[in-house]
C-alpha cells in the first residue's frame, strides 16, 4: 500500500522527483499500455503517458489524500486524451509496424521479440493489429471503457470514477463497445466460439 500521506509531506513538496518516481513506478507500465491502446501509436502513447505523469507531478497538491492515486492518475490521462482529441480532431491510426518516412528513406520499426515459431508470430502480429485496429475504430467513450475494463482490469466503479460517469453508463459503454468489436472481429470471434463449443 502506498504511503501517499508521507509523500504529500514537505519532502515531496520540495520537488522530490525520486519520491514521485517511486510513487508512480507502480503505474507507469499500466498507464503506457492504456495510452497505447487508446492512441494506437507508440510515440503518441509515450507522449500521452509522460504528459499525464508530468501533470500529476505538477498538480500533486490537488490530490486528495486518502483517495485512490491510481484513479486520479488515470483520470488525468483520460481527460488529457479527450482534450487532445478535441483540440486536434481525430487521432490518426498508424500501424505499429508501419515504416516511418524520413528524408533519408524509410525506417522500420522494431516490434517485441515474441518467442515461438514464425507462423505463430505472424498470426499473433496479425491478430494484434486487427484487434488494435478494431479498438481504434470504436468511439472514444466506448474505447476507454473497454480498454480500462478488458485490458487493465479496473472495476466498473473505478471506471465510473476515472471517466466521471455513472456505473450504468460504464456498463452501457462496455457492452456497446464489445458489440462493435464483435462485429469488427467477427471471423476471430466466431472461430473462438466454435473452438470453445467443440
Amino acid at each position: 500500500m502506498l504511503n501517499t500521506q508521507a509523500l504529500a509531506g514537505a519532502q515531496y513538496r520540495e520537488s522530490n522527483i525520486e519520491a514521485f518516481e517511486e510513487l508512480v513506478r507502480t503505474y507507469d507500465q499500466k498507464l503506457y499500455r492504456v495510452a497505447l491502446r487508446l492512441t494506437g501509436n507508440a510515440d503518441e502513447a509515450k507522449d500521452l503517458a509522460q504528459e499525464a505523469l508530468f501533470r500529476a507531478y505538477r498538480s500533486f497538491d490537488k490530490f486528495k489524500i486518502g483517495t485512490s492515486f491510481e484513479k486520479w492518475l488515470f483520470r488525468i490521462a483520460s481527460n488529457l486524451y479527450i482534450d487532445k482529441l478535441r483540440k486536434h480532431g481525430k487521432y490518426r491510426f498508424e500501424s505499429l509496424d508501419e515504416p516511418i518516412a524520413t528524408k533519408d528513406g524509410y525506417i522500420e520499426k522494431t516490434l517485441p521479440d515474441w518467442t515461438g515459431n514464425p507462423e505463430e508470430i505472424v498470426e499473433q502480429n496479425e491478430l494484434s493489429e486487427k484487434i488494435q485496429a478494431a479498438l481504434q475504430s470504436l468511439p472514444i467513450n466506448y474505447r476507454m471503457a473497454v480498454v480500462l475494463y478488458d485490458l487493465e482490469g479496473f472495476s466498473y466503479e473505478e471506471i465510473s470514477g476515472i471517466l466521471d460517469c455513472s456505473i450504468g453508463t460504464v456498463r452501457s459503454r462496455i457492452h456497446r463497445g464489445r458489440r462493435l468489436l464483435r462485429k469488427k472481429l467477427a471471423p476471430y470471434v466466431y472461430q473462438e466460439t466454435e473452438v470453445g463449443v467443440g
Partner: protein
Amino acid sequence: MTCEKVRSLLSAYIDSELDYQELRQVELHLLDCTYCQEECRSLRATKDLLGMLESPQLPREFWPELKERINSHSVSEFYRRLLVRVLVPACALLALAILPIALSSNTGASKGLTEAKTDLVEPYIREYVISELDRPFSDKTSLGFVATAQAVTMYSSDLLEPYGHPTPHKGVTPSGQTGRKTQIDAFKRVMFLSPK
C-alpha cells in the same frame, strides 16, 4: 425478462457486475433461450480476444525524458517563484523609496539637462543661421530646418537679439511656461518672419 433486456445486461453478466436480482433473472432466462446463450458466448469470446493483445514494454527513454522535463520545470518554477516572491516586491520597495527623492530633485535635474544640451549644439549652426538671416533673399524655411528646434531653443536669446527682443541670460534656456513660449516664438521668427 425479455430477450432485449437480457442482451443489454450480458456484458455486465460476463463481468460479474450485476446485482443479485439481475443476476438471477439473467441466469433463468439463459437456461431457456438459445439465442441469448449464443449472444453471451460471442461477447465472452470478444472479451477473451482482447486479452490476447501483447503487453507493450515501456520505452527505455521514457523515464530519462520525463525526469529531464520535470527537472527543467522545477528550475523554471524556482526562478518564477524567485521573481514573484522576491524580485518583484524588492523592486516595488526600491521604487517606493526612490520616488520621493526623484520628485524632490526634479527641477534641478531638468536644469542640469538643459545646460548639458547647450554644450551639444554646434556653434557653427548658430553662426550660420544668424549670418543667413541678414541676407535679403535668404530662405527662411530652409534655415528653419538647418537650425533645428534644439538649436533654436538653446540659442533663442542670441537669435532674438537682432530683432530687438530682451536678452535672457546667454546659454541658459528659461525654464517654465513663459520660457517655453519665448522659445517657440523665436523658432517661428527664424523660420517664417523677416527681420524687423
